[in-house]
């Protein structure tokens, strides 16, 4: 029992419940079940990219390029559709583009041995630029986007199963799969071990490069899925579809317990953190707070949460030292 109470995920769950309680008091309509479920469509994409990002971070890497990979993959889908490809082919093309983007990141990181943050920063521009160029090629200049999708595609985002909207359903299925892979499989264990100690992993003969490459490719593929979900939701593929997910997704991973130094993090944590962040924005909006303030509060939330986690470690060390000193004095006297 104690084991579960002391977990970070429990704290996140408490945060979520507190959020529901506070916003529910301000505006009872917030707690309406259909509202709670329906509003997930506004932030499901954050979770879709934050979950694989968590795995990248656990393995000791970081990826910021997913934010533009979302747009790039959406544009690839749009173009394939524009040239009359059947829907499954277009979707496959988009997923392949995402995988290629991830493979590209991993390759550059391993070939240049430069920190992943810098490399993916470069590809953040490159993918964004490539998406802009591609959409320029088919004449969808600027940020208008590519539309005219088949109905089957655009209706997907509004499809519901047992009351759960499709984007949220995608997120849940993804979370279940990644949860099993990360926390129960051999691969997941190698991911953690790479991040815990790259030295020890190397000496143990773990295929570090392969493991890290897989994590980046996963992020690329899920960025493509996020791009498809958003294209379906908005009815058009735009270059800047994923730009707004950059900060919230990293926030979700870190708030969810992923350590930027690697080796720590959990799928459930990130999923809960996504809900905390998403409902914070929804709740603030419904309470009549302008959206700009809610973005400030999300930033503040990240700072406070991380400061608390790190600060409490510093405090715990200090307290332990004090207790030990008092004990000895007592023993001496």
């Amino acid at each position: 029992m104690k084991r579960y109470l002391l977990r970070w995920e429990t704290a996140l769950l408490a945060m979520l419940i507190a959020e529901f309680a506070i916003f529910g008091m301000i505006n009872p309509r917030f707690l309406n079940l259909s509202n709670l479920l329906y509003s997930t469509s506004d932030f499901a994409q954050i979770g879709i990219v934050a979950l694989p990002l968590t795995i990248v971070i656990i393995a000791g890497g970081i990826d910021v390029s997913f934010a533009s990979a979302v747009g790039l993959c959406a544009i690839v889908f749009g173009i394939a559709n524009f040239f009359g490809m059947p829907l499954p082919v277009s979707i496959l093309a988009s997923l392949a583009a995402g995988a290629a983007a991830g493979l590209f990141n991993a390759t550059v990181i391993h070939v240049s041995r430069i920190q992943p943050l810098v490399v993916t920063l470069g590809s953040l521009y490159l993918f964004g630029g490539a998406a802009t160029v591609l959409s320029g090629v088919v004449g969808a200049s600027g940020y208008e986007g590519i539309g005219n999708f088949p109905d089957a595609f655009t209706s997907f985002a509004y499809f519901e199963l047992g009351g759960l909207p499709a984007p949220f359903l995608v997120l849940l299925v993804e979370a279940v799969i990644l949860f099993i892979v990360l926390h129960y499989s051999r691969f997941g264990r190698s991911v953690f071990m790479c991040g815990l100690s790259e030295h020890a992993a190397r000496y143990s003969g773990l295929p570090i490069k392969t493991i890290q490459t897989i994590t980046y490719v996963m992020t690329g593929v899920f960025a493509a899925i996020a791009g498809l979900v958003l294209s379906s939701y908005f009815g058009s593929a735009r270059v800047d579809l994923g730009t707004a997910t950059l900060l919230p997704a990293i926030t979700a991973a870190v708030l969810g317990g992923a350590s930027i130094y690697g080796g720590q993090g959990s799928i459930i944590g990130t999923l809960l953190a996504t809900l905390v962040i998403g409902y914070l924005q929804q709740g603030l909006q419904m309470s009549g707070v302008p959206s700009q303030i809610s973005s400030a509060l999300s930033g503040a939330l990240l700072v406070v949460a991380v400061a608390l986690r790190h600060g409490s470690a510093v405090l715990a060390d200090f307290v332990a030292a004090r207790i030990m000193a008092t004990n000895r004095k007592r023993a001496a006297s």
Partner: protein
Amino acid sequence: MLDFFARNRVATLCAVTILAFLLIGAAAPGYLSLSTASVVMSNSLVLMSVALGTMLVILTRNIDVSSGSVLGLSAVVLGMMLNDGHSLGLAIAACLLTGAVAGLINGLLVTMLNVPSIIATLGTLGLFRGVMLILTGGNWIEELPLSLKALADNGAVGFSVLTVIVIASLIVVGLLVRQTRFGRYFYAVGDNREAARHLGIPVKLVQIAAFVAAGVLAAIAGMIFAAQIGFIPNQAGNGLELKAIAANVLGGVSLLGGSGTVPGIFVGVIFLTSIDSALVFLKIPAFWNDFIAGAVLLLVLLLDGRVRMAVDRAIRAKRYAVHHHNTPAPSAPTNSETMSKSRTQEAGE
């Protein structure tokens, strides 16, 4: 050869930049002119100032991704003060103070609470942007007084006051990190934090100073931004932090801390900025801009990484060269000495 490129990153980038200019000049006559140079220079001022501050933070082996929001926030403080009728001097002072406080917050989070700098500044990136939006209520600040806009006007010699300010900051920071004792600490703290601590350097103070300086320089960039375009939109400075880091990387500043120079920043920023103007002259649609910037950045990174690895290999090979012909030692250890040595080791385990 490799060694030269590895050591003279700035010279290499300079050569590449000049070569690129010449090629573009050949392809698009009229490109190589004083007016182009003047446009590139004034377009690069905002990025230059932000990148300079980012360099100080990176030297200490931290990173600052909040500078775009600091720029926006301090520009808004400047604009609101001016529109409330305060004097230009007072408004600029408040603007710089805002930047300093923002930097101080970053610095305290990183040093006192041990939050990794990327996370701390990612948080404050959102936080400062939000504070700015709360201040403006989401509205753009327009109709800035002429006194501010006049700063951007080219004077008799073809330089604006802003250019002078940025050049002066470059020189001041350059002298600070090269010549002064405290300035050298920036390199030491980033190069080997444990060694710096061991040598009695105030490691935390140096890191805080770097963040505060970065905040002030971002505020200066905010002032330049407001003066140059005459109004302050909501998204002022958005994405600039990433461009500043890109300019640092291009300019040879190591993200592992401890190495980087001000001339490198200058060349890196000019290179990035001139891509825009070159595209115009080459009649390439503007939407190629980000793609080219990203491709160039990654190409430089790849080359740099390969060169550095080659140099490392050379150093390793030198270190592991096995000495073959040794001269006999003056004295061989005596029996009792080796005995006591082994005893000591035994005791140690």
